[in-house]
């Protein structure tokens, strides 16, 4: 166990080496949040209801989505792809260490760091901008939100890990990683709640794993999801968790088998 605790610590130390880099990264995330916040704020000027959302619910959604993004996205995926491409992955493969666990722990370490900062940032924004937001007090809803977020973490980890593993087969996997980021941001619900899309598109999207990253847990927090919708959402969510969990192991095995390290 202390093996993984050490990985956790060393990941933190590594992230904190470059203070400027880290601060800039946080500024980027604050600016992104501000941008989305003001877009939605101006949409509501002179209107009370847009796509069935009130200003209060949408601004709450944006704040929660920012939190979810910090919890669920933030990933080391491109590190893995780089290591596969430059061959330094051999240093891991010769060690008695679970590859998946190693990267999962590093991800979690990164997340905790980001979460600490994002909570501070959001609190600051709420204090400065004083928007009306929903404080969810229903304990059941909060628990469901946390459960969905944890499942979202696993789904995101699996997807990004699998995409990085593509580096075993293609020499430049950054194109896939870039595409994945775009898809996840857009369809994941980081910019807007995806139920404002036309209904057929929304229905199809809800069968894919993407909305369960940001949209689903954020929407849960608002407390407007009921009965069947809730049941359906969690069923699809757990379906994907199981599928991806098997897929990740399968792809890793296949990748290692076909792996021909650079140079001979």
């Amino acid at each position: 166990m202390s093996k993984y605790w050490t990985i956790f610590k060393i990941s933190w130390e590594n992230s904190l080496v470059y203070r400027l880099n880290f601060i800039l990264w946080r500024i980027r995330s604050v600016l992104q949040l501000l941008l989305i916040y003001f877009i939605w704020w101006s949409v509501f000027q002179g209107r009370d209801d847009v796509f069935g959302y009130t200003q209060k619910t949408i601004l709450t959604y944006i704040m929660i989505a920012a939190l979810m993004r910090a919890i669920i996205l933030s990933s080391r995926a491109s590190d893995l792809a780089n290591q596969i491409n430059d061959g330094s992955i051999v240093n891991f493969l010769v060690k008695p260490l679970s590859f998946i666990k190693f990267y999962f722990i590093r991800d979690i370490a990164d997340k905790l760091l980001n979460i600490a900062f994002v909570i501070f940032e959001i609190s600051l924004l709420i204090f400065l901008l004083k928007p009306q937001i929903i404080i969810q007090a229903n304990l059941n809803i909060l628990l469901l939100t946390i459960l969905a977020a944890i499942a979202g973490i696993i789904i995101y980890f699996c997807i990004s890990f699998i995409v990085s593993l593509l580096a075993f087969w293609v020499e430049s996997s950054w194109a896939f990683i870039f595409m994945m980021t775009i898809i996840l941001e857009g369809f994941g619900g980081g910019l807007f709640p995806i139920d404002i899309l036309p209904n057929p598109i929304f229905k199809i999207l809800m069968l894919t794993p993407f909305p369960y990253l940001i949209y689903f847990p954020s929407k849960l927090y608002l407390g407007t999801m009921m009965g069947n919708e809730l049941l359906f959402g969690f069923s699809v969510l757990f379906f994907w968790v199981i599928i991806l969990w098997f897929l990740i192991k399968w792809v890793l095995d296949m990748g290692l088998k076909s792996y021909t390290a650079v140079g001979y």
Partner: protein
Amino acid sequence: MGIISVKNLKKYYRVHQKEPGFWASIKSFFNRTYYNVKAVDGVSFKIEEGELVGFIGPNGAGKTTTLKVLSGLLYPTSGEIEVLGFEPFKRQSAFQKQFSLIMGQKNQLWWDLPPMESFILNKEIYEVPDEKFKKVVRELSKILQVDDILKVQVRKLSLGQRMKCELIASLLHSPKILFLDEPTIGLDVVAQKNMRDFIKKYNQKFRATIILTSHYMADVRELCKRVIIIDEGRILYDGLLENIVQQFSTHKLIKVDFIKFVDRVKLEAVGQIERFDGLHADIHVPINEVAKRSSKLLTKFPVSDLTIEDPSIEDIIRTIFARGM
């Protein structure tokens, strides 16, 4: 029963091929041509505990591929491989805890952190007890003279210092087998010497089995009694380094000094002249003619001094690669 045994190992790669140029790039995007590279093509050998064996061969000979198969990084295309009683590709922890692979060009140290942090991580990964960890770090950093830089960020270290720290990181779990792939690459002469001395000491002190690949003959000559010469995926020679000289040298070199100037044309009757300046000469002589030719030299020329030398190992290896076997 050796500690490492390899029977008829083959490893083929499929590589895609592209003509130079833009259109060829587009063509290769849609229609790729592949060809097989026989990186290792039927290699067999056995290595006993405590041996220090050198793999020699030009770039692309199959040395690194062999090491990678032995450490479980590559699936062999065919062949039977056993290391410490394990099949390497199963990558069992019990096996992985007993060896180390050190590649001169692939770093395992965390670039942005001091080496000590990487050591601690390895300690945990290999489950090395506290006491033993402290002892090993103390010992090794003293021998390698790096005790003062263990808390400096890796990126700020020189290549020599970094390689030494790489070594320590790889030796924390006291591996029984060490695979060293070009451990002295890029190092200056002094650092190369330090590295060699250390490897030798480590082999003797801990009876570790070591396989070493290197382009530098000096590494091999100083460290390895036994060498395996590989070219194009096949073994050309497997045996004692000193026997290569006997087995493969066809000529010896007679170095001779004269009292007064001699005629070059007359000297050519003795053998092929490599170097000549009137008073000194180096002459290549077939090995079975050495006695006859040198007595001819002594009787017919005003010789002040004469030595007979074996050709250098570099020369022999070069001839082996040049003509095959």
